[in-house]
């Protein structure tokens, strides 16, 4: 049993739904109780889809358990086929149905429906959403794709985009254009937008572009083995990522590595003087493995940030993330425990978080700005505008995304100069964000600086961190004057100043922090 407050991933059948909902003319019959239909709202509310997901739930009840849930499944399957007439069906069980062991796959097979029926076996008590999506798409590809004649012109399949993915819709558009500039056509994009008959033609491509390893890797590995399709390993996120990707595709297909950089603005924006203030900003990255490792590179090499910590919630990507973390000189945090992530971020005291919707909330609580760079995301992260994170435009979008939560260059200086000014005081926050005063500002007096006071779920299962943070066994006390001085430091660097000063004092065995200690520490850490 694992005590869980918030989860990064849903159960595996939600992953299967992401595949089914992204595709066309495919229907999913899910053996599940009525409450599991909540999953529809993920797609219709959060992603604003205009159709219900193509899912029929059997919604068995207590009274059915004594009778015949298997027959209920059979009837639901038949009715779904007759009503929706899909080209193919997938069938499976949710966590509860897994326990009653009706074998939906076997039942559906014996029904002799006139379309391919693909059985899913998703272990609900061991695996999670991304596994469910990856496995489902692999099963569909394996069941339907056959070797076939290659397209005359160089072509690839785009593999991995699903419903509810982070910016998948726009990444597909961006990559399609980028590949077209190289003279490479997209044979099939799947799961997003593909019908089961499209899946049968996967083998006509010359290679696969694996956009999201989370949801497409198993299928790509199978196609490599059984259809002879090599697949790309680089992730076209950021300037470096895009260049690597172009080179890799050119190499795989034997075409010229052309890249039109007319619209690429990130390098100049990053080089222009206003961006000087970005130098060395400490960022903490957390999300799915693919986005985190790609964004870590962008953060360090293209924005000039310092990576203060990084990690991912999907164990499947742990190795790749650890490798990049080592390169960045930090230790990777691999966990799906929200409370652990919160504790790690608090300890690292970064100036910016790049994360998921969960880290946005952690950021709110700790008063640290946050940009969302990975699923799971909320409704506002499915923007109306075109906003890919892959390709050339993706790089431009990333510059904006990563800078937006921060206080802008000149503004940062004004805040420092006029920190007692009513308009520039701490609580004002970045001028371009309405009403986001950090919670720290409200505090007055008391014994020593405190963490923001927002309530947190961490109380229920994280071990309480002692007092004020990274001071280990030594209890460090802030003298009143030093505490007042600390409050004069603008809020967006105060956390770092506090932490540095305490670490500095502790390292020297000092138990009291005076104004002098504060400035000694400042000088010590000056860069």
């Amino acid at each position, binding site marked *: *049993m*694992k*005590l*869980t*407050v*918030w*989860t990064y991933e*849903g*159960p595996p059948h*939600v992953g299967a739904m992401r595949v089914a909902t*992204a595709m066309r003319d495919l229907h999913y019959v899910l053996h599940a*109780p*009525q*409450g*599991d*239909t*909540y*999953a*529809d*709202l993920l797609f*219709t*509310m959060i992603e604003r*889809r*205009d*159709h*219900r997901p193509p899912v029929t*739930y*059997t*919604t*068995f*009840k*207590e009274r059915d*358990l004594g009778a015949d849930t298997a027959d209920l499944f059979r009837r*639901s399957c038949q*009715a779904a086929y007759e009503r929706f007439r899909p080209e193919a069906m997938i069938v499976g069980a*949710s*966590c*509860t149905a897994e326990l009653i062991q009706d074998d939906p796959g076997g039942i559906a097979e014996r029904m002799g429906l006139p379309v391919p029926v693909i059985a899913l076996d998703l*272990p*609900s*008590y*061991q695996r*999670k959403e991304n596994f469910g999506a990856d496995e489902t798409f692999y099963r569909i590809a394996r069941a339907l794709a056959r070797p076939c004649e290659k397209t005359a012109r160089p072509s690839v399949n785009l593999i991995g*985009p699903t419903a509810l993915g982070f910016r998948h*819709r726009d990444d*597909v558009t961006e990559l399609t254009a980028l590949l077209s500039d190289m003279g490479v056509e997209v044979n099939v*994009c799947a799961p*997003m937008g593909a019908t089961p008959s499209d899946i049968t033609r996967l083998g006509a491509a010359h290679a696969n572009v694996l956009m999201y390893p989370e949801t497409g890797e198993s299928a790509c590995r199978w196609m490599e083995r059984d259809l002879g399709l090599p697949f790309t390993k680089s992730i076209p996120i950021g300037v470096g990522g895009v260049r690597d990707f172009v080179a890799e595709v050119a190499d795989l297909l034997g075409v010229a590595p052309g890249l039109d950089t007319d619209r690429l603005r990130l390098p100049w924006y990053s080089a222009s003087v206003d961006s000087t203030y970005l130098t060395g900003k400490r960022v903490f990255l957390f999300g799915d493995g693919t986005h985190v490792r790609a964004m870590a590179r962008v953060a360090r090499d293209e924005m000039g940030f310092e990576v203060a910590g990084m990690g991912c919630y999907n164990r499947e990507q742990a190795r790749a993330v650890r490798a990049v973390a080592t390169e960045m000189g930090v230790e990777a945090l691999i966990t799906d425990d929200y409370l652990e992530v919160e504790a790690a971020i608090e300890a690292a005291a970064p100036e910016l978080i790049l994360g998921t919707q*969960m880290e946005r*909330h952690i950021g*709110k*609580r700790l008063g640290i700005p946050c940009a969302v760079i990975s699923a799971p995301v909320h409704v506002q992260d499915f923007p109306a505008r075109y906003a890919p994170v892959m390709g050339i435009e993706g790089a431009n979008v990333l510059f904006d995304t990563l800078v937006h939560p921060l206080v802008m260059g000149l503004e940062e200086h004004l805040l420092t100069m006029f920190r007692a000014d009513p308009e520039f005081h701490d609580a004002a926050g970045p001028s371009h964000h309405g009403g986001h005063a950090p919670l720290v500002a409200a505090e007055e007096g008391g014994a020593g600086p405190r963490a923001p006071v*927002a*309530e*947190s*779920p961490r*109380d*229920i*299962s994280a071990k*309480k961190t002692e007092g004020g943070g990274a001071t280990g066994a030594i209890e460090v006390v802030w003298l009143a004057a030093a505490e007042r001085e600390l409050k004069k430091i603008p809020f967006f660097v105060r956390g770092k100043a506090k932490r540095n000063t305490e670490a500095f004092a502790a390292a020297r065995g000092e138990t009291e922090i005076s104004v002098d200690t504060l400035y000694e520490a400042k000088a010590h850490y000056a860069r």
Partner: protein
Amino acid sequence: MTERFAQASGQGCRNAPVLKQRGQHEVFCGLTSIVWLHRKMPDAFFLVVGSRTCAHLLQSAAGVMIFAEPRFATAILEETDLAGLADAHEELDRVVHELLARRPDIRRLFLVGSCPSEVIKLDLAVAAERLTAVHAPQVRVQSYSGSGIETTFTQGEDTCLAAMVPDLPAGPEGPEARELIVAGALPDVVEDQMRDLLAKIGIDAVHVLPAAREATRFGVGPGSRVALVQPFLGDTLAALERRGARHVAAPMPFGAEGTTAWFHAIAEAFGIPPEVVDRAVAAPKARAERAVAQAAEALRGRSVFFFPDSQLEVPLARFLTRECGMEAVEVGTPFLHRQVLDGDLALLDEGPTLSEGQDVDLQLDRVRAARPDLTVCGLGLANPLEAEGLSTKWSIELVFTPVHFYEQAGDLAGLFSRPLRRRDALKVGAVQPPAMP
């Protein structure tokens, strides 16, 4: 039954035929009610014993509240817990000890059953007893089911409140006690309004279930009267009746009419003359009528169709047809509790299809054929119906927003008129949802 509220034409929908459906249900399970119950009981913690699906459901339903301090969590069952029940109980004890050690502010702990815990027959009542013995008097541990195989959405509040009843101390023996129990979670501000009016009528001994804090538990006995403020509390009512309490039958206190009838029914049960009620409620009632009339402008003459969801459908149809001038096409409810809904059914004019249970695909066919002006449905269906040109009101708001009694009557009408006013206000051309892969 009291005759104080004007009957609809004769029996209203009391004896109307009911269309019973048993296909795919598109509704939440009872776990969802934790999202509002835990706000109502600040010293209680809700521990769902379930799967990752249950945790994900709670998170998706709680959505906007994610950064408030949650006093709920899920003990996610793992492969090893499924292997042996003895081990599962041991594991549960471990999780509960861990939780209580870190949350010394908790006075009540609810172990909430889910589909998986029920299918593997993990007996949470036994666990609750065992854990109470360990943690009393500091913490009272109770259990109830919020599973999707047994409960639908708001029914989770019913099973929770019903589970609290047997533990209540013995209460008043005779009617001279004049004690009233009001069952149903209400926002604090609404509860205060209600208490205030009841006091003006002369009823001061008012207990609310759920009590905000463990310390304010009250007794129940043959001298207690029970009034419901939510129609989905059938089991709770039955549990209170088993303890001797007597039901005050009344329409639900929605809108000026429902609220007035509710106070009258209670006054009558306590032998208080109706004029006392009329005097006490005159001002707020007039205010409510004005507010409803204003908000109802956009609703008058328009048709409404209810998908089954919260069990509030019948009382709301009564409010919308009688006070807002709407016409009901279909009133679907997951479960039609005749004893509880009698007052509302009697007032609801015959005409609409009454349906119980659901076959969502067939019901979608019916709503497409009827093309009502407003469709009240769950979150999963709202945008797809909007994309087909139907205005919708998602019903979950009705349990998250203060909508009871006089001062909220205008807001209640406003919840329904807003989607229609919005549609009239938008000048964006024909709404064509973007092609989405």
